[in-house]
């Protein structure tokens, strides 16, 4: 696959691009939120899926995580909002810092972590027993928010997810009646309603058609003004289109992370080059 010769379109609006080739650290933007992992290791039973990852999802940027199947991309993002440990026999070690606060530290409430760091999954998974409205409101109600001002919050979340114009007249139909792409944006709205600082997206477009995919990608470009985004993707063109930075993973290790344009045109590591040019994976 030919690598794009310019950074992703979204990058044009990104706040102050960082020096090319910079890896890890970076100054936090004021009133914005960044995630940094330090020597993050994840296990399923005895097998080590993440072998010490140090990566940063910089504030108000989109970071794409690419790599072949089974390289640990999903595990990495699932460790960030502590969903990894929901799998029986799975555990994680190391540190995940949200604005400098260790999410694996003593006395940290997992529930609070997940409210601060939202997640969108591979397959659209709206709650099938609930209406469109209730699905978004679930983001609020499930987290114990009061009912007042729910209407306004639901509308705002649907607007932010670019779905309001399509569903405003049928908020009470079952969420399963929406198309796949609409369901996925509904799931994004549901996550946004909680007011996360960071949004993790685990191959959010892999079950969608190209047009629905395009809409989600546009949405990602808009959302990064208010939340920091990490997106796992199999699709390298997608990474090139949406991400400010791209991280390449292989066999549970982070091979390279850098500005997207650089990763695709001038990677430092030969393995990255082989992968982005389609020699394997």
């Amino acid at each position, binding site marked *: 696959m030919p690598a794009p010769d310019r950074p992703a379109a979204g990058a044009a609006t990104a706040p102050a691009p960082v020096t090319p080739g910079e890896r890890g650290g970076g100054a936090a933007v004021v009133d914005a939120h960044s995630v940094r992992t330090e020597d993050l290791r994840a296990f399923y039973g005895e097998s080590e899926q993440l072998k010490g990852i140090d990566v940063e999802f910089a504030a108000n940027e989109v970071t794409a995580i690419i790599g072949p199947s089974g390289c640990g991309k999903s595990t990495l993002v699932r460790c960030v909002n502590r969903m990894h440990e929901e799998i029986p026999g799975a555990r994680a070690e190391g540190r995940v810092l949200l604005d400098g606060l260790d999410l694996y530290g003593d006395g940290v409430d997992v*529930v609070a972590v997940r409210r601060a760091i939202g*997640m969108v*999954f591979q397959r659209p998974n709206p709650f099938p*027993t609930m209406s469109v409205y209730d699905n978004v409101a*679930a983001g609020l109600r499930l987290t114990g928010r009061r009912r007042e001002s729910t209407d306004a919050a639901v509308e705002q979340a649907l607007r932010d997810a670019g779905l309001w114009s399509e569903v405003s007249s049928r908020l009470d139909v079952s969420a399963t009646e929406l198309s796949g792409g609409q369901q996925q944006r509904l799931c994004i709205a*549901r996550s946004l309603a*909680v007011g996360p600082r960071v949004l993790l997206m685990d191959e959010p477009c892999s079950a969608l058609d190209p047009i629905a995919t395009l809409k989600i990608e546009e949405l990602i470009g808009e959302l990064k003004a208010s939340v920091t985004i990490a997106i796992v993707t199999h699709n390298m063109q997608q990474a090139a289109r949406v991400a400010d930075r791209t991280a390449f993973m292989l066999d549970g290790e982070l091979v390279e992370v850098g500005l997207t344009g650089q990763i695709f045109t001038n990677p430092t590591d030969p393995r990255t080059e082989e992968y982005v040019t389609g020699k394997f994976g």
Partner: protein
Amino acid sequence: MSAQGATADVLAPFAVSRRRRRRDRFARWSVAAATLIAIVPLALILYYLLRRGLGAISWSFFTTDPTGNTFFGSSSIGGIKSAILGTIEIVAIASLIAIPVGVAVALWLVEYGQRSRAAHGVRLFVDILTGVPTIIFGLFIYILLVVGTGYAGYKGSLALALLMLPIVVRSAEVALELVPSALRESALALGAPRWRTIASVTLPTALPGLLTGVLLAVARAAGETAPLLFTAGSTMKTNFDPNTFMNSLPVQIYNDVISPTPAVEQRAWGAALTLVVMILLLNLFARLVARRSAVG
């Protein structure tokens, strides 16, 4: 044309052989015959119930209590009102105990116990409980509660609840296992506490399956005689106080069917028909509810 001929030549070796056709026909007929054999006794039961039971049915059959005057004409033996109401109340109390506890056990198994050793222990225990003859539950309650104090409706309910519990647990476990883990995960990822995830997402999604299992247990309990014989006792008068003797359909049938008076024996058939129809109606009702909640 020549191309067609060539294709036929190529496909010829794949034509279904006579032998395979014969075998296929044989297998189809065997399966159909087995189905028929299974249906015959069911149809016969329904046929006999209707033939012998319909004669007993009248308005007063449902609105009067049995009188105990079994030596006189059929007009004075009375109906089965106390048995119908007794069965409803005893089973309702049993359900109030067994359903919440059973669903809670299933929730624990699916959401918390999972594949732990403790969960395996509980599953084994529940399986054993499923196989226990129902008279044992009656005997257990008899020894525990009845000896020294006497029969009472609620003691019958307890015996039935014990019988229902394993059925509810196993069926609810299956229904809860079927809830896609993606739904649970997305609720947890929103920052919902686990209990809220269970209450707002897992249980509503599993509802149709839960209903089916619960119904199966209720139907089983409603038809049981053995656990009631020496726990709830039997009586003739309609009685809503679960602290005293209560009549029930299975026990009434049991008492009536051994009577030498033909009219009383017919009342047993009428009561049996009533019981079957009640369970059928409950089944239909629950299916309706399940379908509606699945669509909604």
